[in-house]
């Protein structure tokens, strides 16, 4: 191995800057999961009877299900009885204003670079902050309310807008959809809820920031976004967790409903703790994200996945209405011992539906990166079209990239295109940049960011900057 290649491998030995934990006075349930746990969670949240029943039904379903093993992931067995399913920072029951947020929590978010004081915030982003299992605060509620937009924690929505929640909860991801979705449905603790009324263009970006803080807890949040006819919303999601030696489980569900001519743009920057360079610790990230697009509606998923030791995630679109549009733009980085099995499902039901998939997988150190995607054209999907592009970038010699596309076409008028490429960050590229004066780290960051350009272009401005920085940090280390 030449010096340059060794240099490259040292470059990907990154440090995780969000690995601190905060001492919060936390209310934690003892580990273990049975029907009583589900009842306890529901009772803690003071939930209506229908929701408890919904949870119990999900729990019963989950008990009969098997953990999926089709992904290209090597996972140490998960002991679901060793996890605590409820953790919440203790705080005053009612927050009158942002000033009432626990100063320690505020400090934690300041440290993460997300100030919760509205006057200090970016004026065009409203934030829902979720710590462990509960939402601690939501900013800009009043501004949003003037436009008729509801943006609040899931628990609050259950109490304030039960009819909306009841109508849409589980309508896109049914409780029996898969093992992790069923588990989430039984024990989900909080998350975000957004509702955009007919014809409204949401006046600002909505954002949820998820933070796992407590030890030995799982995080199970649930997000539901409903965009009525002719509405428009852009939603951002960010995640971090402390550095711990144990693996922690995160199993989330996100449901999007885009009614006629509505548009939902959902962007994620996932940076859960990835574990250390020996593969110890890190978040197990099992996420079910799906949207249903009605007539002429558009759902666009953009994700930048740099964290977690295991990522199992396939943000999908059911293209139900005619002329509906689904998009998936993804950057997934697997470094250290990280494993990612991620991609999308585009299910074309309506006529003239179109979907676009742009996936950029980056593998470094001992990382394993798999793109797994399904493009399904049903008999009714007259003239449906899909374009898929999967590019893999390899850094170093011990990593792996895999591409597993599934294509099912039942309508002869449908068109499906698939392009795939695999490349390496070459010594010649690094040398070229260095000859022009850049150091090895800057050169590497530039080359990798260039590889991801098409996806970053889809992110809202602030997130694109954050994503580029994150990628550079994840690839940075001591240069030999």
């Amino acid at each position: 191995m030449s010096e340059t290649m060794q240099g490259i491998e040292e470059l990907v030995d990154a440090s995780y800057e969000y690995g601190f934990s905060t001492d919060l006075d936390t209310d934690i349930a003892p580990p273990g999961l049975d029907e009583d746990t589900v009842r306890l969670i529901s009772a803690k949240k003071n939930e209506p009877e229908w929701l408890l029943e919904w949870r119990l039904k999900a729990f019963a379903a989950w008990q009969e299900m098997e953990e999926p093993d089709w992904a290209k992931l090597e996972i140490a067995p998960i002991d679901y009885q060793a996890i605590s399913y409820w953790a919440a920072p203790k705080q005053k029951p009612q927050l009158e204003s942002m000033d009432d947020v626990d100063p320690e929590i505020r400090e934690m978010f300041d440290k993460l670079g997300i100030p919760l004081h509205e006057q200090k915030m970016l004026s065009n982003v409203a934030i829902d902050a979720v710590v462990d299992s509960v939402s601690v605060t939501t900013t800009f509620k009043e501004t949003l309310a003037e436009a008729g937009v509801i943006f609040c924690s899931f628990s609050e929505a259950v109490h304030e807008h039960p009819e909306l929640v009841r109508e849409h909860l589980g309508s896109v991801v049914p409780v029996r959809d898969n093992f992790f979705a069923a588990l989430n449905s039984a024990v989900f603790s909080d998350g975000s809820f957004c509702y955009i009324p007919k014809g409204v263009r949401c006046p600002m970006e909505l954002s949820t920031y998820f933070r796992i803080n407590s030890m030995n807890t799982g995080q199970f949040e649930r997000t539901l976004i409903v965009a009525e006819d002719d509405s428009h919303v852009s939603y951002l999601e960010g995640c971090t967790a402390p550095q711990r030696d144990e693996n922690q489980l995160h199993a989330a569900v996100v449901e999007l409903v885009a009614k006629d001519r509505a548009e939902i743009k959902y962007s994620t920057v996932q940076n859960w703790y990835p574990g250390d360079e020996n593969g110890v610790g890190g978040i197990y990230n099992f996420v079910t994200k799906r949207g249903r697009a009605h007539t002429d509606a558009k759902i666009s998923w953009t994700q930048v996945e740099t964290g977690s030791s295991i990522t199992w995630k396939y943000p999908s679109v059911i293209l139900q209405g005619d002329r509906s549009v689904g998009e998936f733009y993804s950057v997934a980085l697997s470094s250290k011992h990280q494993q990612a099995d991620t991609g999308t499902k585009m299910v074309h039901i309506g006529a003239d539906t179109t979907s676009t998939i742009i996936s950029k997988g980056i593998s470094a150190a001992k990382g394993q990166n798999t793109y797994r995607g399904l493009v399904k054209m049903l008999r009714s999907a007259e003239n449906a079209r899909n374009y898929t592009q999967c590019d893999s970038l390899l850094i170093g010699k011990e990593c792996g990239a895999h591409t597993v596309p599934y294509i099912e076409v039942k309508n002869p008028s449908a068109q499906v295109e698939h392009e795939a490429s695999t490349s390496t960050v070459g010594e010649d590229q690094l040398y070229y940049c260095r000859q022009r004066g850049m150091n090895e780290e800057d050169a590497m960051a530039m080359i990798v960011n260039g590889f991801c350009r098409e996806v970053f272009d889809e992110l809202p401005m602030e997130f694109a900057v954050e994503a580029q920085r994150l990628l550079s940090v994840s690839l940075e280390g001591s240069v030999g």
Partner: protein
Amino acid sequence: MLHVKNLAASIGDAEILKGLDLAVGAGEVHAIMGPNGSGKSTFAHALAGREGYEISGEAVLDGVDLLDLEPEERAAAGVFLGFQYPVEIPGVNNMYFLRTALNSVRRARGDDEISARDFLSVANEAMELVEMKEGFLNRSVNAGFSGGEKKRNEILQMAVMQPRLAVLDETDSGLDIDALRVVANGVNSLRGPERSMIVITHYQRLLDYIKPDFVHVLVNGRIVDSGDHTLALHLEEHGYADYVDAASLSGAPA
């Protein structure tokens, strides 16, 4: 300016440069000619710091031995290599690349970074020099460029970087006559009393456009003859055969 003494380079068991000596004064243009495999490109990369070679000897630029420096430190010291095969970097905007390069070198020298506005005027001037149309800077670095565009881009970069020592490795290869003229004009207008150039080429053709002060013949890892530009004309007529025969004789075990 540049003093190269007894420079040797090898990869594994293969000796490529076998004790090369060369002195380049400020403001001078030196052409290095030689047959395939004589070590011309290796010489260029040895000066620029490509990894993978065993190197010995000296290459002192302005009192600093380049051989002790990393490639980016050599760039900061004023070394610019015009690549024979410029590398493609998809997704990286040409303008952004150039500005990052210039600012990296400026930072390394303790200078302030150039402002976006000043950079734009520097870049526009360089664009005119190589007769590139607007929009060229917004494309990805060399990605999908024609051979001629890649070479023009190298000269454009040189114009922006304003190096002390420019080493142009077969900048004429793959160019049609119009592109050759553009590239040569670019190079000529960058000649100056503070800048030295080493122009590596197979063919005398380039030297019709870029008139060197000195011509050296590199054969089998050594400079075997030096002269003024008439030497290039002689080579054009007679080829390298005489030198190659002599080199193989002198290379015989003593």
